[in-house]
Each structure stands twice: as structure tokens, then as C-alpha cells.
């Protein structure tokens, strides 16, 4: 007779126990199924960081060997030490750093303007099949055309000004970036677009929350290529459009070397141009790419 309450409490307890059991079951299974990740070994990371230096060392060694064997006179093939000395000389004259900085500034500015143009174009063509059918061949044509080909036209249109250089940089970078974004959009797995739709992402929200992050891996490839094209186009433009009004630049430094017949300066300039390109890739794009791949579980480590 006085047992009703007891029975009630027992049922509640049982239910609570079952709930706790369920929580523990879930936690247990989760722990079993997610293996703790092993970090890559330290020696592997060191190898990765220093392996590129091995290539540099080999090239320098072969170059020095050619010098020791006196294969060519030094006005044709100067030694690494002579090239280095020439760069030091440029540095002491206060030319090396301003040249590099001015070129880099133009490259970055040109790349930024390219982005402003290429992103809307890429989105429009990526999302609208009609626009794409009309404009994609043109874009691909522009991408195939070496942008140096535009230098003479740009000089006629804009004279020897920064505008000429930017025009050439833009024509080099915009098609690559826009095309990269379009391929990125094409490669978004349909399930993400469906998920976005089901969650209620429409219009601008869909572009911001789903399309751009979904297209990001392909888009990033386009950005890297766009930067490479921007940098090359810039060097070509600086090399051809030479005027005091344009200020210093690595392309100008290279042209000066050619005019003086100073092979050390020519090689020094080429190496500097390469180093700047590599540094941008290593310090800007590579970390972003690594992060993207790691976040999305695309590198198995």
C-alpha cells in the first residue's frame, strides 16, 4: 500500500540510469573510433624545411665547378662570388632594396586590383551558365596569351607610367584568378550546396557561407597562379617600359645590367627576382595552402 512512491522513484532512477548509460556508451564509442593523431616526426619536418636548400647547394656547386674548370670567360659566366659582390655593390649604392621594394609594391598592388576585378567576374561566370558560355572562352584566351604581348599596346595607350605596368600585371593575373575561382566553384561537392540550401542559405549568404569557402581549394590554386603571372608580367613590363619617371625596380636593374654588359648584375637581378617570388610562395601561399588542407583533412598525417 505505501509502495507507490517507491515505485515512482525507481522508474525515474531507472530512466536516469539509462540516460547516463547512453551518455557513457556514446563517449566510449567516440573514444574508440577517433584515434589520437600522431604528429609528424621532427626529423621529417626538418627534412622538409631544409631539402630545398640541397638543390641550391647543388646548383652552386656545379656553377663553381664550371668556374674552376674555366669553361667560359667571366664576362659570360661570372662566379657566384662575383654575382654576390655585384649585389652587395647594388645594396651599398642604395639600389637593391628600393628596387625590390618598389617592384614588390607594384606586384602586391597589381595583385590586389586584380582580385577586385577577378572575384566578381569569377563569381558571375561560375554561378551563371549563360554568362559563362559567353565570356569563358575570352577569359581562357586571355589566360593563354602571354601578357608581355600587351606591353607595346599599353605603352601606346598609357605612356611610360605606372598605369602601363599595372595594365600588364592585371591582364596577366585577372584571367588566372577568375578561372581558378570558376573551377573551384565547379568542384564544390553538390552535397555542400544542398546542405546550404536546406539550411536556408540564399543569394549573398549562399555565396559568403557556402560558395566561396566551398570553392576555396580551387580558388587558392588560381590565386597562386595569378600571383605568379602578376610577378612575371611585372618583370616583363619593367624590363621593357624603362623610364626615369617609373622609379627603381628589379626589371630596371636587370635592364641596366644588360646595357652595361655587366653579366654579374644580370645574374644577380635574375636571382633576386626568383628569390622574391619564392619567398612570397613560401611565406604567404604555402602556409595558407597547408592550413586549408589540414583543416579539411585533405593531408593524411
Amino acid at each position, binding site marked *: 500500500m505505501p509502495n507507490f512512491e517507491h515505485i515512482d522513484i525507481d522508474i525515474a532512477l531507472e530512466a536516469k540510469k*539509462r*540516460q547516463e548509460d*547512453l*551518455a557513457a*556508451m*556514446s*563517449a566510449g*564509442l*567516440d573514444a574508440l*573510433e*577517433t584515434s589520437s*593523431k600522431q604528429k609528424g616526426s621532427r626529423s621529417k619536418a626538418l627534412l622538409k624545411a631544409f631539402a630545398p636548400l640541397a638543390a641550391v647547394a647543388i646548383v652552386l656547386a656545379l656553377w663553381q665547378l664550371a668556374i674552376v674548370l674555366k669553361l667560359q670567360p667571366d664576362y659570360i659566366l661570372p662566379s657566384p662570388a662575383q654575382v654576390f659582390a655585384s649585389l652587395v655593390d647594388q645594396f651599398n649604392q642604395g639600389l637593391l632594396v628600393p628596387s625590390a621594394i618598389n617592384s614588390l609594391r607594384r606586384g602586391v598592388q597589381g595583385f590586389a586590383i586584380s582580385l577586385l576585378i577577378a572575384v566578381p567576374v569569377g563569381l558571375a561566370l561560375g554561378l551563371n551558365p549563360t554568362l559563362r558560355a559567353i565570356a569563358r572562352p575570352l577569359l581562357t584566351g586571355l589566360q593563354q596569351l602571354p601578357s608581355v604581348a600587351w606591353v607595346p599596346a599599353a605603352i601606346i595607350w598609357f605612356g611610360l607610367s605606372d598605369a602601363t605596368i599595372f595594365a600588364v600585371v592585371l591582364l596577366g593575373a585577372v584571367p588566372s584568378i577568375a578561372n581558378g575561382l570558376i573551377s573551384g566553384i565547379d568542384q564544390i561537392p553538390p*552535397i*555542400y550546396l*544542398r*546542405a546550404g*540550401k*536546406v*539550411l*536556408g*542559405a540564399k543569394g549573398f*549568404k549562399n555565396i559568403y*557561407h*557556402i560558395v566561396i*569557402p*566551398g570553392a*576555396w581549394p580551387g580558388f587558392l590554386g588560381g590565386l597562386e597562379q595569378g600571383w605568379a603571372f602578376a610577378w612575371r608580367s611585372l618583370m616583363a613590363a619593367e624590363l621593357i617600359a624603362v623610364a626615369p619617371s617609373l622609379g627603381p625596380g628589379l626589371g630596371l636593374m636587370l635592364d641596366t645590367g644588360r646595357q652595361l654588359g655587366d653579366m654579374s648584375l644580370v645574374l644577380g637581378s635574375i636571382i633576386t627576382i626568383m628569390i622574391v617570388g619564392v619567398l612570397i610562395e613560401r611565406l604567404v601561399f604555402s602556409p595558407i595552402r597547408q592550413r586549408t588542407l589540414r*583543416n*579539411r*583533412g585533405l593531408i593524411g598525417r
Partner: protein
Amino acid sequence: MSESYSGSTAVEPILKIRNLTKRYAPNAPVILDEFNLDLKPGEFVALVGASGCGKSTLLNILTGLEEPTSGTIETSHEASLMFQEHALLPWLTAGENVELALKLSDAPEAKALNADGREARAQELLELVHLPTAFDLRPHELSGGMRQRVAIARALAQGRKILLMDEPFAALDAITRDLLHDELIRIWDETGLAVIFVTHNVREAVRLAQRVILMSSKPGRIIREWNIKYAQPRRIDSSDIAQAAAVITDELRKEIRRHA
């Protein structure tokens, strides 16, 4: 277990589907043929059928991903949809996936939240699906069962009263699936959602649902429905469930043989 063709009508349905028909072109085969369903608030209905019964088409129509050819859907509530693949966005963490659903939701409760509120609510929902420490993990760091639970949390974040589930556990191993059945029933019980659960697995349907609807294939039509009256939580390996499932499986096989 009792057979019936209409449920009791004491409560006003939350969703009324009337004569829903779908074909992809005027002369194309009928995918879904005169489909009718009343879903009551908090009801758990399972749809079972072989391939080609139009289950996925039905869910797509209900979530507005596709248009019906004819028929009507009467409801004042939108539905959340959960897929077989987890469909979590890989560029977001588990918590951010849930937060995004809150951000995009048109439910007033979700709209009233600021960024901190959304984060707190997302954490709450992850705790509800028994993932209290998963907020900062990326989808690829989670197991299949954990991903589906995050997907449940994300669907719940939309703040809707109807949850559509398209074979959500089909790709999971048996142990995980059993556990997710328990978890789903617990969550259903705690949230009072109305659920339409689509599956190929008759036992799963009987394990979970109050009502199991069997559909024919090509065209997709309702053949019969059963009320499953055993109390929850049920066990998928109990003899009651097995016997109930056997009755439905026999009907399903009859329907499949018809296509031979």
C-alpha cells in the same frame, strides 16, 4: 501492433500531404503517385520501401528542393532535412556548423541570438547529442556516428518542428547504428519533434517509429501502414520488434516480387 489506414484525428496535424504526385516530364514515369500523409505534432513516422519508391523525392519536395507535379502540402512549419551523408561543411568546426544553421535560420529564437548566444546555443545542442567536447573538432576528426550526431544538432539548430531524415544511419556500422537509435529516440523524446524517417531497413523502422508506412516502387505509392505500439525505448534485437518487422518484410517482399 494493429493495422490501420488512418490515425486518430484528435490532434490537428502539423503537416498534411494530399495527393502528392511527381513525374519529371509529362510522359516520364510517375515517381510518386497520389501520396497522402497526416503528420501529428511530435509523431515519429517511418517510410519503408525498396529502391525507386520515391522516398527521397518526397523529402526533396517537402524541403522545397524540388517542386511537386500536382498535389498539396499544408503546413505552417518548415522542415529540417538530414541526409545519409553527414553533409557537414569541412571548412567549419563541428560547433561552427551548428552555429551556421543558427545564423541562417529564420526562426525568431535563432534570429534573436548574437554571436555569443549562438556559440552558447551551439554548445548546448552538441551537449544534447552527447558531444560536449566536440565544438572545435573538424568533421574529418570525427567518427561517422559523431558526424551524424553533429548533423542532428545542426538540424535541431534550425528550430523547426519537423525533422526529415533520409536514411541517416545507413552508412554506419551496426554498433554505432544501435547507439544512434537510442540517441535519436532520446532526443525525439526531449525535443517533441515530429519526425519522418526514411529507411530501407524494416527493423530500424520498427525500432524507431510509432507508425511505419510501406511504399511500393515505380510508382511510389502507399501500400499499407502499421501502428507500432510497443513502448520506447525498444530494443532492435527483441523478439517483439523482430516479429513486427517480419510481418512488414513479408509485405515488402511481396511488392518486390511483383517487379520480377
